[in-house]
Structure formats: structure tokens, C-alpha cells
């Protein structure tokens, strides 16, 4: 039926038109309608427990949102109603100095443009009701209590919405009706929502039959017939499977509206392969193009950090790449969209064919590049962490790079954020800010000759306070139950809501802590110790020099800058970075979350190296006040000067077995080092020169497991900015920024500059 109606060329053309249409949307009002519905109907269900209440509210929301099927939709469904125009980094008015986190859940009401329909009164009325909910009031208390610690970001905390990987495989196979028979009462009601939604879309499609062209009528009939099958029953082909996936995703996001960033798909190639039924690569790719467009929300693709994985291995090390993997890559390459993110799990037995097919992504300017994961290393690390063998093939990525198990792991990934250089600053001064002079904490002034121990003591002090606050945020959020999502996170078996803070609903649970600035701290230790040996006369002046941002102390700064730095394979500097990573990881792991599980050290800094750096005074490594911190585990920009080989060797020494929450690392690679002619050969060359040394050459311990790259040069990007019409005629020039893609031209100037700086070509030179 489907193949009679659509050729793959037709499906592709419609996907491209659909994306253009989506990008033309200037308003996102659906989330407000959903929130308004929730606020106005809450009392109606006050007699029920929280889960049941939320399930009924979800049904009301599904009935309230306006639906649309445009002429280019071959599938019905959207996640537009779950997102607002909020994500700061893709907002051109964003300023580093004004960023204050996403701590105020009512701030989103500022992100809607007032018009005749959405009047100020209407918006304010809902904001008022919302601000009195237990969730918002409890969260405000948590933030107020932590204010002294968070105002200059010694740490930061947030309530974590999204950031999970639901397992839809059972639903796709057996259908929602089957699940409802097994589900706890609240979850059963919540599951009805997706059936209601499908029914509404089906009715709309039927209405559109009137006056439709013959061609469109055939397409609409396919939609109508498909919605007779899914989501109630299991999917029998790829078209039905994609349709069902989209509707489940829509309801899941709506349940957490607004802005449940970073929900991720998991291994889409493995999820969809069983439904392909021999469909060829071209046709499969064309359908998947619509799947990819679905993840893009409005004019700037506001649903950020949704991640799709491909490839990887099984427990015995066999490769799991399949035909859908290659079709999905074709879809990504041809569409080149800002969302969703593409990640690839590589391992020792990854076939060269896959590297070859990846070549075009790395070496076509302005085309998205996948994040790379070392599946061998992830298996070792997570196995040691306690993940069962049977779950290891389902290692997925929530958001940017945090590894967790699809459908089984509530990792609360971005719950807390620790700013090590700020803690070092406060250690050196005894709790006084070098930027404002304000006393921020009652801690003793550290002793330079004992700086490491004094620093770690204060990390312990702040980590405890951070964990308390982060747990407070998680507890506040537990007022907002998620019975629908819970069905895909182990709740079908356990009956426990995924946000329950007293009973563990998911097989695995933890809370994340993003640790910032290891290289600044370790380079500072080295510089302080060398200074005490060689220039003890500087010791008494150091704190003043930092306070004055080295003005009048240029000689001291020269000396500090000349000391050994992490990233050059110099033993003392690298050992210091290893020590900081180990000790801080241990301190963070020893903190317990609301269920008594450990916090997971995550050494990543999704642009927060810039935001938090703004709140750190000058540091003893020679860095000036308010300058960026190092990105993730990478050396600070400009400090690794001996090229790629030495940088990788330094990088390899870090204790990856402790980075159970993940980490971030980026290489800006100059394409001139790759001399093969074809994209396929360049892809294999990329394996030999970058992937093999980084991922597969460490002989002991856990090897690095994550990398993202931008294959370009600072000069190229400056040309793109100066003349976007020439270098990016489509208006889209995709770059990687931490774990996600962005349209480089959409970014705020500060973030554009950050990307250019961090290409740091000296640190990745492949020639000598």
C-alpha cells in the first residue's frame, strides 16, 4: 500500500518541505495551553493520589492541544507543544554575564509573545497558579537556601526533566492495549492518552479527506488505516512503527511540558530494524527522514539535545550494525538538520564500511558530525559499576553524552554542577569572592604549602551542600508525577512512578554531578608548588595578584604561565590532573541522593565552562578573571601546544572508570591532515589517525569512551561568519557544541567565539 502511494523521492521531498514549514514557525503556544489546562483542571482531581491525578490531567492536555496535519506530513504527531523558545544558547540575545540557569520554573512564562489570544492577563493568571504549586514553592525554598553558594556558582543545582531514554520496544511490539492490561491504575489511565491522541488525529485526517486531491486522499487514508492499528496494537511494518514511536514520544514530552530537554531515543537502528521487512535502504532512509524532522521544533529547533544512537556491539563483542544503521546515516546526511543529535557506538570490531560511511559527515563542511562512543570501554566501565550483562547492549546516551541504560536507568543527569576553580578561589581567600569581595562561605583560608589537602577539604564541604540542595530539587520535582513515561522506564513491572522519591521505580538510579575545571585546578597546583620552590618571594603576593587580575603582577603571571600544563604528556602536570579527577570523583560518589544511591561524577561542561568561568576570578595557573574554564576533561585552550599525539597521551591517563556519569572532550581537527581522495577513504583514515589511538590503544584500565569533533579551522569559521550567503547558502551550517549540534549561524556571538577558540589547532596538530 505505502509503496504504491509514495516513491522514496516523493517522501524525501515532503520531508524537506516539512522541515522548511517547521522552521517557519515563529510561535510556540502549545506548552502554555497544556500548562493552562493542567492548572485549571487540577482541583477536579484532587481526591486522587498524585499519579492518578497526573494521569487524568494528561488526558485533559491531550484533548486540549490544537492538532495539525500539514500537507507534507506523512506521519501525524509533533513535539512542538512540549517546548518553549527558552534554550539560551541558541538565542541571539543570550549574554554570558546574564545567564542565571534554569532554576525558576515560572521564567518560561516570559518566553511567550503576548498577542490577542495569549494576553498578559491570561499568561499571568496561569503563572500565578503555577507559582503556588508545591513543586514551585518547594523548589524556590531550595534555591533560596543555596543562594550564597550558587550566586557565584561554587555549585549549581537543577530539577531534571527529560534527560532519559524510554524503552518503547515492548509497546512497538505488543501495542498499548496489551500494556494497559498489565499497568497499575494510574499508568493505565495515562496510557489511554496516546490512544485518545491517535483517535483525534485520525478524525482530523478524515475531515481533511473532504476536498483533498486524489493523491493526498490516498496518503490520508494510509494515515487513517495506520491509526486503526497503532498505537493500540503492535506495529507490523516500518511505517507503523515510526508512526507509533512518534505518538508515544509526543505524549511523553507533553507530560513534562514545558521543556523536557534531552529525552533520547537509544539505538534507533535496532529499534526499527525488526519492522523493516526487507524494505530497501533508500526507502527506509526516506521514511526515517520524516522521523528526523519530527525532532525539530519551530524556527530554531528548540527541543535541544535529543540523541539518536547507531551501531555498537553485543556482549560477546560482535558488531550490531544493520541495514537500518546505514539507512539512518543516509537520512541524516541528506537532511543535515540541527536536531536530533547523532551518536555512534564504535568498538574494536566495528567494520571499516561504517567508518567509510561516516567519512562524509566528518569531511563535508557545515554537515553534522556524530559523537563517538567507545562501546568496549563503556561495557567495561558500566559493568564494573554494577550494570548487568544483559543490559549492556542497551547502553544509551541521554542528552549530550551521559551513558545510561535504555528504559532502566533514572540518572537525574544534570541534577548538580560543581565548579572546582571557584572552590579553589574560595580556598585561597577563606571564602571571599575575588570578583566582588563578598564573603560567600565560612571556611578557613587555605595554606599554599598544603593547598591540595585544603582544597579537597573544601570540595567535600561544598559537595555535601550541593547534594543536599540537588536532592531538594529532586524532591520538589517529585510532586509532578510522570505515569506515562514510567510505563517505559520499568513502571509496567514495578508499578512505581519514575519520580517516586521513596521507592525506586527504575532498575538503576543515581544523580548526576557535572564537574568543571579539573585542568585549571591541577595546573594551579603545579604552578603553586613550583612557585614555592623557585620563587618563594611570590607566595605572599599571590592572592593579591589574583585579586587584581595580575595587573601590576605581570612577572608573577609570566612565571605561572610558564609552569607545566596538563595536555602535553608531561608527567607532573598529568599526574596532578589524574589526582584531581580521582579525588573529586570519590568525593562526589560518596554523596547520596534521595534514594540513597550515589551521585555519578560527570566531567562535562555543556557550555558551562564559559558561563561558570565568568564567575571565577584569576587562577594560579595564570588564567585571568572571568575567562572560560577548560572544556570537560580537555586541557585549557592554548595550554596543550605539542599536538594531537601528546594531547591524547595525557588524556589517556585519566581514570575513566570513575567517570560513570560521562565526560566531555572535543577535538578541532584540521582537514588538511587527511589526504585520501574519497569520503569513504577519509573515514577509514579518520579511524586510523583519531579513533584507534584515542579509543583502542590504551593497554591497561578503562580507555577513553567519548569524543566529538569539528573538522574545520578557525579561518574557515570566520569566513562563514563574514559571508554566510557564500559559505552557507541554505542558512544552515551545522557545528558541534558540546554534545549537541547547532546551526552555527543561529548561535549567540559569545558561543560562536567559544567554538572558534576551542578548535585550538596547536593542540590537535597531526604533523611535526
Amino acid at each position: 500500500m505505502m509503496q504504491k502511494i509514495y516513491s522514496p523521492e516523493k517522501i524525501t521531498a515532503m520531508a524537506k518541505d516539512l522541515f522548511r514549514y517547521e522552521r517557519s514557525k515563529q510561535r510556540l503556544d502549545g506548552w502554555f495551553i497544556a500548562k493552562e489546562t493542567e492548572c485549571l483542571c487540577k482541583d477536579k482531581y484532587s481526591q486522587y493520589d498524585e499519579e492518578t491525578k497526573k494521569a487524568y490531567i494528561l488526558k485533559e492536555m491531550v484533548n486540549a492541544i490544537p492538532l495539525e496535519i500539514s500537507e507534507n506530513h506523512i506521519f501525524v504527531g509533533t513535539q512542538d507543544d512540549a517546548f518553549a523558545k527558552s534554550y539560551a544558547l541558541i538565542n541571539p540575545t543570550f549574554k554570558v554575564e546574564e545567564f542565571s540557569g534554569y532554576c525558576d520554573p515560572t521564567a518560561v512564562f516570559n518566553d511567550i509573545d503576548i498577542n490577542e489570544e495569549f494576553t498578559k492577563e491570561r499568561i499571568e493568571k496561569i503563572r500565578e497558579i503555577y507559582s503556588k504549586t508545591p513543586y514551585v514553592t518547594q523548589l524556590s525554598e531550595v534555591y533560596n537556601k543555596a543562594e550564597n553558594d550558587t550566586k557565584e556558582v561554587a555549585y549549581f543545582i537543577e530539577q531534571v526533566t527529560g534527560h532519559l531514554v524510554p524503552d518503547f520496544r515492548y509497546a512497538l511490539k505488543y501495542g498499548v492495549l496489551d500494556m494497559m492490561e498489565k499497568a497499575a491504575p494510574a499508568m493505565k489511565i495515562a496510557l489511554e492518552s496516546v490512544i485518545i491522541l491517535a483517535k483525534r488525529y485520525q478524525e482530523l485526517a478524515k475531515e481533511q479527506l473532504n476536498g483533498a486531491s486524489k493523491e493526498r486522499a490516498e496518503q490520508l487514508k494510509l494515515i487513517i488505516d495506520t491509526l486503526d492499528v497503532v498505537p493500540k496494537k503492535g506495529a507490523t511494518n516500518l511505517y507503523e512503527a515510526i508512526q507509533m514511536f512518534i505518538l508515544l514520544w509526543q505524549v511523553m514530552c507533553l507530560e513534562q511540558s514545558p521543556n523536557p530537554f534531552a529525552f533520547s531515543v537509544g539505538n534507533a537502528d535496532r529499534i526499527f530494524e525488526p519492522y523493516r521487512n526487507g524494505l530497501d535502504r533508500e526507502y527506509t532512509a526516506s521514511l526515517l527522514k520524516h522521523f528526523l524532522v519530527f525532532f525539530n521544533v519551530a524556527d530554531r529547533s528548540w527541543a535541544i539535545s535529543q540523541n539518536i544512537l547507531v551501531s555498537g556491539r553485543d556482549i560477546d563483542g560482535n558488531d550490531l550494525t544493520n541495514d537500518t544503521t546505514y539507512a539512518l546515516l543516509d537520512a541524516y546526511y541528506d537532511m543535515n538538520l540541527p536536531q536530533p543529535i547523532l551518536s555512534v557506538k564504535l568498538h574494536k570490531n566495528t567494520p571499516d564500511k561504517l567508518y567509510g560511511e561516516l567519512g562524509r559527515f566528518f569531511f563535508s563542511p557545515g554537515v553534522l558530525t556524530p559523537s563517538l562512543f567507545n562501546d568496549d570501554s563503556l561495557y567495561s566501565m558500566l559493568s564494573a559499576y554494577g550494570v548487568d550483562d544483559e543490559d549492556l547492549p542497551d547502553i544509551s546516551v541521554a542528552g549530550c553524552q551521559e551513558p545510561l541504560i535504555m528504559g532502566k536507568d533514572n540518572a537525574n543527569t544534570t541534577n548538580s554542577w560543581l565548579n572546582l576553580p571557584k572552590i579553589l578561589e574560595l580556598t585561597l581567600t577563606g571564602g571571599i569572592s575575588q570578583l566582588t569581595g563578598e564573603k560567600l562561605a565560612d571556611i578557613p583560608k587555605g595554606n599554599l604549602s598544603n593547598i591540595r589537602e585544603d582544597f579537597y577539604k573544601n570540595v567535600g564541604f561544598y559537595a555535601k551542600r550541593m547534594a543536599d540542595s540537588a536532592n531538594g530539587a529532586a524532591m520538589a520535582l517529585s510532586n509532578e508525577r510522570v505515569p506515562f513515561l514510567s510505563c517505559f522506564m520499568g513502571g509496567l513491572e514495578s508499578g512505581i512512578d519514575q519520580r517516586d522519591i521513596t521507592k525506586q521505580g527504575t532498575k538503576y538510579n543515581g544523580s548526576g554531578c557535572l564537574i568543571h575545571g579539573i585542568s585549571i585546578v591541577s595546573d594551579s597546583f603545579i604552578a603553586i608548588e613550583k612557585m614555592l620552590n623557585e620563587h618563594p618571594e611570590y607566595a605572599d603576593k599571590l592572592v593579591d595578584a589574583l585579586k587584581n587580575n595580575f595587573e601590576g603582577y605581570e612577572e608573577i603571571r609570566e612565571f605561572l604561565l610558564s609552569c607545566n600544563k596538563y595536555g602535553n604528556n608531561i608527567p607532573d602536570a598529568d599526574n596532578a590532573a589524574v589526582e584531581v579527577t580521582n579525588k573529586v570523583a570519590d568525593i562526589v560518589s560518596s554523596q547520596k541522593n534521595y534514594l540513597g544511591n550515589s551521585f555519578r561524577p560527570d566531567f562535562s561542561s555543556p557550555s558551562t565552562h564559559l558561563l561558570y568561568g565568568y564567575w571565577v576570578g584569576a587562577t594560579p595557573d595564570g588564567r585571568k578573571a572571568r575567562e572560560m574554564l577548560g572544556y570537560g576533561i580537555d586541557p585549557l585552550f592554548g595550554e596543550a601546544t605539542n599536538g594531537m599525539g601528546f594531547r591524547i597521551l595525557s588524556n589517556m591517563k585519566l581514570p575513566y572508570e570513575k567517570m560513570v556519569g560521562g565526560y566531555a572532550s572535543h577535538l578541532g581537527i584540521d582537514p588538511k591532515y587527511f589526504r585520501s581522495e574519497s569520503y569513504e577513504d577519509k573515514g577509514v583514515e579518520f579511524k586510523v589517525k583519531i579513533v584507534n589511538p584515542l579509543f583502542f590503544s590504551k593497554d591497561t584500565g578503562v580507555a577513553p569512551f567519548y569524543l566529538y569533533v569539528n573538522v574545520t579551522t578557525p579561518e574557515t569559521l570566520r569566513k562563514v561568519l563574514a559571508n554566510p550567503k557564500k559559505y552557507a547558502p541554505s542558512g544552515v551550517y551545522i557545528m558541534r557544541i558540546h554534545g549537541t549540534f547547532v546551526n552555527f549561524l543561529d548561535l549567540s556571538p559569545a558561543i560562536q567565539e567559544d567554538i572558534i577558540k576551542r578548535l585550538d589547532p596547536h593542540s590537535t596538530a597531526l604533523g611535526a
Partner: protein
Amino acid sequence: MKIFQKGFNYSQDGPGNRLVYHLSGCNLKCRWCSNPEGMVQKPGKYTEVTVQEILDEIISCKPMFFSGGGVTFTGGEPTLQFDELKKLLTLLKKNEINTAIETNATHPRLCELLPCIDHLIMDFKHFNKDIHKEWTGLENTVTFENFERVCNSKINAIVRIPVINGFNNTPDGFVEYFKTFDTHNISFEILPYHEFGKVKWESPYTVENGFITKKDLESFEKAFINNGLKIIHM
């Protein structure tokens, strides 16, 4: 030892991924030199390290010597620091590390190093001593002797010929000279002139119109092949 630059490259100066050390100082003054900053051992322009320190560093880099890689010493001219280089190469062989040197082959004791070198890369810039001296500041009598010794030694060696317009852009003379030897262990690499290092020259750069044509390059390679001389491209 005096080092002015170090870093990794892949399959350029020997096989696989290699850590390349540029040793400071050179006895030639080639007009086209692409590393002029390494010609003279000027204080502040190099880092002084002991043999043991370099050895430790190289051992710490072992994971990066993949695809048959290892260490290459180039310059400047590495054999100017002969005794230390010999000591280091001996220690590297004891540690089973693949070694290569890239040399202008003007050092009379070059062949003493051969037992601890896996890959010898030697320049042979001209077959005429006077022209060689005019363009490099030194006659290459010793290079001729070393070439003969290398042919007899059976070590696998690459002989590099930088081809520069106005200096040596025809194969005549080269072929006649090389074919008098048994060169079965030698591969020849023809390097067309480039100006990657021109910006680094502090004194005036005196090569004009040094680029060779594709035809020149082809005639070089053809003449070598026709005379049974092996050509390689790295």
C-alpha cells in the same frame, strides 16, 4: 640533546604513527629549507634534555606507536649530536622501539648508527659536488660515500631527492650515478619543491621560481623506473 620541535605524524617520516624529534643545528644551509629555525643552535630556540629524559618520554608514548610506528629523529641534522643520538638509539632498540632517522648523510660515521636504525631516510640532493655546495654551502663527498655504504649494508633505506627548479629538475646525472650501484634495498622518493617553510625564514629567502612542473616530476619518476630504480610515495 637540543630539540627545537617535536610531535606526532602519521606515515610521513617512516611507517605508522611516529613521534618525530627535530634536533637543533645543521651543517648545511639549503636555500629551500623548510625548517630554517633549526639551522643554528641559538640559545632560547631549543630545549635541552638528557638522553634519559627523552628515553622516558618516548617510552611513555608507546601506546601511540600504532601501525608499525615509532620514533624518528630529524632536524636540523640529527647526526650533529652524534654521540648522544647513538646512545639514545641503542637504548631505544633495547626497549624494542621502532627507530628512524632522517639525515643529510654528510656525517662520516653515519653507518655506525645502522645497527640500531629500522628505517634510514637519507637525502641525496645533487650528484654534482660543486652545485651542491653552491646551493647548500657544503660539498657532498661524504654523502656519496655513505650512499655506497648503505647500498652495501642491505639496510632498507629511502633516499629522498628534493627536486627544485633551477637546481636539479632533470633526472639526468642522478640516474647515471645511482644505476652503478646495487640498489635493491633502496627506495627513492622524489619530493617536489614547496614553500611551506618560507614564512619562517628570518634572513632573505633566495630560491626564485623553485616549483617544478608535473611533467618534470613525471620525467623524473619515469627515468628512475626505466632504470630499475624503485620509486615510492609517502
